[in-house]
C-alpha cells in the first residue's frame, strides 16, 4: 500500500521527510500503516531462524515472519498460493509441478530491498534443504519431505550439487519433477522448509540466522540471544501490510512470568501452553472468556523409548510393551486438567486415518509385570528427559512412579526446551523422552516419516526412538504416492498397527493447546490448526 506523508507546508514536509528517512522506514502516522508493538513470550530460546533447520513451535512462527513459501494454508487446512501466483499445474502422472511466481516480490534485509525474487532463488532454496554440507548439520527433513524430488538422492549422498528435478525454466517459472508421485509433496512445500531464500544465502545456517534475508511481511531488526528478537514490519512487502508495526519475541521468559505478563496485559501472547493451575483459575472466569484460547491439535504427547540402544533392556520389545501397559494415562490427562484426549495409537482423532479401534496396550500393571518376567528383566535404571515446563515435570514424575511399579528406576532430567532438542537429537543420548509432536500438515504420513523413519534416525533428526523398520519405510513411501488421502487410509492404519506392535514410543494424549492473550490483541479468533498463531495477521489496539 502507498504511504502518504503528512500534508503540511513544503518546508515542513521536506523536514519531516528527512527526519522520517533518518529515523527509519516505518514513520508514517496514517491509519492502516502497521503500528504498535505486539509482544509474544516464550520459555525457551529460538533454536534456529534458518528455514532448513528450525523445526519447533518457537522457531517456526519467527521464520514465518521473515520467509514465505510457494503455497501456504488459509485460516484452515486448505492450500492457497503465496509466492506462487496461483496453484501449480500438475502433470497427469503426478510427477511434474509447474509454478508461476508472483511478480513484484523483493528480498529485504534490515528493511532495505536487496533485489527481486527469481525462480533461481526457489531452486536454490529447495535444493539447500537437501545439501549434506549444510552447517552446523543437514536439515532434519531432507529425506522425509523432499526425497521424492528427482535427483534428490544424489544431492543427499553428495554425488551431485543440485537435484535435476529442480529447474528454473525462466525468471518466473519453477518446474519440479518428482521421481515418484507424492501426495504430500505440496504440503511439504507449505512448511517453512519450503521457504524461499536468496541464492547468496549460502550453506551456513549460523550466518543466515544472524542475517536473514527474506520476502516476508517482517524483517529481523535485532536479535539478542536468550533475550529478545525484534521483527519490524517490512515496508516493501508485496502483500497486505501486517497490522503490528513491531513484533517483540521475548525469549527465556520463565513459564510463570510469561503467563502473569499475559494476564496483566504486559505481553500480548503467552507462547507456551498454559500451566495447569492457571488454566484451572481462568477457564471459568468470564473476565478471561475472550482472552483464553483453546485449540485441539493435530498432535500427540508421547514417551519415546530408545529401541536400538546396545546392551539395554529397552531394546527388548517385551520390555517396551510392559512399559506401555504400565503407564496410567488417565492420571496424565488429569495433570493436564483434562486438556485433551487419551492417545492409544499414533494418529489424533481429527486426522484422516484415525483408528478408534487401535488400542493395543490398555493400562494393566499385572500384564506389564508378566511381560517383564517373560523378558527375564528384573529391574534396571534409566533416565527420562523432558522440558522444564511444570506440566512436563509432573507428567514425567507420574510416569516414573508407574515404571517404578514394574521395577524400572527412572531418573527424571529436565532441560530447557532448546537444550532438550540438542540432547535428544544425538543418537542414544536420551533413553526415554517425554515430548510432543505437532503435525506439520494434515496427513497421516506426517506422523510416521519425521519421527519413525530410518531417515529421521540420524543426528539432528526427530526420531528419538532411534527405531526404524525398512519394510515399514517402504510401505510408508508407497502410501505417500497414493494420490488421494481416502484411498491411503487403510494402508496407514495397517502401518500404524505394525508400528505399535514394536512400541518404539508410547502415545500418551492428544493435546488441547491453551493460551492467554492480552485484551488489546486484535485479529485472533481461533488458533490456527497447523501454525497455532498467525502473528502477521494480529495487531494491537491502542
Amino acid at each position: 500500500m502507498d504511504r502518504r506523508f503528512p500534508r503540511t507546508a513544503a518546508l515542513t514536509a521536506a523536514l519531516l521527510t528527512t527526519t522520517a528517512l533518518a529515523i527509519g522506514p516505518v514513520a508514517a502516522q496514517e491509519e492502516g500503516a502497521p503500528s504498535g508493538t505486539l509482544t509474544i513470550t516464550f520459555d525457551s530460546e529460538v533454536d534456529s531462524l534458518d528455514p532448513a533447520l528450525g523445526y519447533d513451535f518457537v522457531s517456526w512462527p519467527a521464520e514465518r515472519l521473515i520467509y514465505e513459501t510457494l503455497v501456504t494454508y488459509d485460516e484452515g487446512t486448505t492450500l492457497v498460493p503465496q509466492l506462487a501466483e496461483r496453484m501449480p499445474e500438475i502433470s497427469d502422472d503426478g510427477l511434474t509441478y509447474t509454478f508461476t511466481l508472483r511478480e513484484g516480490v523483493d528480498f529485504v534485509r534490515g528493511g532495505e530491498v536487496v533485489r527481486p525474487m527469481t525462480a533461481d532463488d526457489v531452486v536454490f532454496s529447495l535444493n539447500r534443504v537437501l545439501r549434506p554440507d549444510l552447517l552446523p548439520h543437514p536439515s532434519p527433513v531432507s529425506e522425509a519431505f523432499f526425497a521424492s524430488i528427482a535427483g534428490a538422492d544424489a544431492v543427499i549422498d553428495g554425488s551431485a550439487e543440485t537435484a535435476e528435478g529442480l529447474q528454473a525454466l525462466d525468471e518466473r517459472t519453477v518446474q519440479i519433477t518428482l521421481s515418484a508421485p507424492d501426495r504430500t509433496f505440496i504440503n511439504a512445500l507449505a512448511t517453512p522448509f519450503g521457504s524461499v531464500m536468496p541464492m547468496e544465502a549460502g550453506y551456513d545456517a549460523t550466518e543466515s540466522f544472524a542475517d536473514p534475508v527474506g520476502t516476508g511481511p517482517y524483517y529481523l531488526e535485532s536479535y539478542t540471544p536468550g533475550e529478545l528478537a525484534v521483527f519490524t514490519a517490512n515496508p516493501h512487502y508485496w502483500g497486505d501490510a501486517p497490522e503490528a508495526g513491531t513484533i517483540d519475541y521475548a525469549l527465556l521468559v520463565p513459564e510463570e512470568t510469561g503467563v502473569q505478563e499475559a494476564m496483566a496485559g504486559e505481553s500480548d501472547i503467552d507462547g507456551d501452553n498454559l500451566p495447569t493451575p492457571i488454566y484451572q483459575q481462568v477457564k471459568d472466569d468470564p473476565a478471561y472468556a475472550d482472552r483464553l484460547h483453546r485449540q485441539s491439535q493435530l498432535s500427540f504427547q508421547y514417551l519415546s523409548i530408545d529401541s536400538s540402544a546396545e546392551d539395554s533392556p529397552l531394546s527388548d520389545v517385551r520390555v517396551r510393551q510392559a512399559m506401555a501397559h504400565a503407564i496410567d494415562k488417565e492420571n496424565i490427562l488429569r495433570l493436564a486438567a483434562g486438556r485433551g484426549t487419551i492417545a492409544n495409537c499414533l494418529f489424533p482423532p481429527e486426522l484422516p486415518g484415525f483408528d478408534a479401534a487401535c488400542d493395543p496396550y490398555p493400562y494393566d500393571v499385572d500384564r506389564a509385570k508378566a511381560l517383564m518376567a517373560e523378558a527375564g528383566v528384573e529391574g534396571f535404571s534409566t533416565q527420562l528427559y523432558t522440558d522444564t515446563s511444570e506440566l512436563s515435570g509432573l507428567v514425567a514424575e507420574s510416569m516414573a512412579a508407574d515404571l517404578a511399579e514394574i521395577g524400572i528406576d527412572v531418573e527424571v532430567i529436565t532441560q530447557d526446551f532448546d537444550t532438550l532438542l540438542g540432547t535428544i537429537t544425538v543418537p542414544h543420548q536420551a533413553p526415554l523422552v517425554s515430548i510432543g509432536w505437532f503435525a506439520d500438515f494434515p496427513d497421516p504420513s506426517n506422523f510416521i516419516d519425521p519421527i519413525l523413519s530410518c531417515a529421521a534416525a540420524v543426528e539432528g533428526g526427530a526420531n528419538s526412538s532411534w527405531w526404524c523398520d525398512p519394510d515399514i519405510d517402504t510401505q510408508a513411501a508407497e502410501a505417500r504416492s497414493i494420490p488421494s488421502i481416502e484411498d491411503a487410509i487403510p494402508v496407514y492404519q495397517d502401518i500404524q498397527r505394525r508400528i505399535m506392535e514394536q512400541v518404539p514410543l508410547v502415545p500418551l494424549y492428544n493435546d488441547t493447546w491453551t493460551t492467554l492473550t492480552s485484551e488489546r490483541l486484535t485479529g485472533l479468533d481461533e488458533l490456527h490448526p497447523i501454525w497455532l498463531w498467525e502473528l502477521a495477521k494480529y495487531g494491537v489496539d491502542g
Partner: protein
Amino acid sequence: MSGRVEHADFLIGDEPPGAEEALAPTSASRTRRSLVRDPAFWVGATLVTLVVASAVFAPWLAPHDPTHQFRREIPLGELSAPPSPMFPLGTDQLGRDYLSQLLYAGRATLFVGLVANTLAVFLGLVVGIVAGFVRSPRLRLPGGLAFSVPVESGLMRLTDVGLAFPALLLAMALTSVLGRSLELVSVVIAAVLWTTMARLIYGRVLMLRSREFVLAARALGTGNVGIMRRHLLPHVLPLALVYGSLGIATTILFEAALSFLGAGAPIDSPTWGTMLERQTGSLTTDPRLPLLPAIAIFVTVLAFNLLGDAIRDAVDPHTQRT
C-alpha cells in the same frame, strides 16, 4: 583500665581502651550466664532443636512415604487433595503427602546446610590462620638467594577472587555440565561461604599474633605449625563455630535461590528450595503449596540466626560484625 583480666595472658604495647576486654576470652561461666538470660537464645535453641529433630526423626514422624502418589485420593476436578485426617497438610498435584514431603525435604536442606558450612568453616580456618600468622615468610635458598613468599597476600587475594566470583553463574554452569546433585550444591555454597569465614579468622589472628602467649610459645621453640594448631586454633574456634552456625541460615537461603534458578537439588531428592520453586505457579490457585516450604525456610533461618546471634553475643560481645 576497665574490667578485670581473668586470663593469664596480658597485653603489651599500646592498645585502645576497652580492647583488652574485647580480646580477652570470657570465662565459661560468664558465657553461660549471659546466654541463659537471653530470650533470643531460648527461642532460637528451641526452634533449632525442633527443626533438627523433625529432620532426624522424619522416617518416624512422616505419616506416609513421601514419594507415593495417592492418585485416587485427589477429589475429582481438583488438582490436589486438601488437608484432611489422612493428609494433615494435604497432597501435591501428584497425590504425595505434603507433610511427609516437607519432613524429608528438611533432611536434604539441613544436609546441604551442614555439609556446606562444615566445608566452609574448615577451609576458612585453614586459610585464615595461615594467612594471618605466617604472613610473608622469608625463604632462603641454598646459594644465598632469599625472597619473601607472599603467603598472606596470596591467600587474601584468593578470598577476594572468591568473593568477587559470581556464585550463581558458577552454580548454573557446573550444574549444566555435571547435573544436579546435593553434593554439588553443598560444594558450590561452601566455595562461596569460606571466603567470609577466612577473612574473619584472618582478622582475628592478626590481632592475636602479637599477644605474649604466642611470643612465649615461640621462645619455647614451638614451630609455626605447632603455634597455629595448639595456640591460635583454640582461640579462633569459638568464633568459627558461631559464624558457622549463622552460616546455616545463609546456606538455606542460597540453596533456595539456586533451586529457583534450576541449579539446585535434583528432582528426586527435593529440598525446601526445590519444593518452593516447583510450586510458585500455584501461588494464586493453591497457596498452601508454595507457602508451606517458604514457612519452613523462614522458621529455620530465623531459628539459626537467633541462636547464632545469642551465642555470639555471649562469647564475643565486642566483635565487629563482618
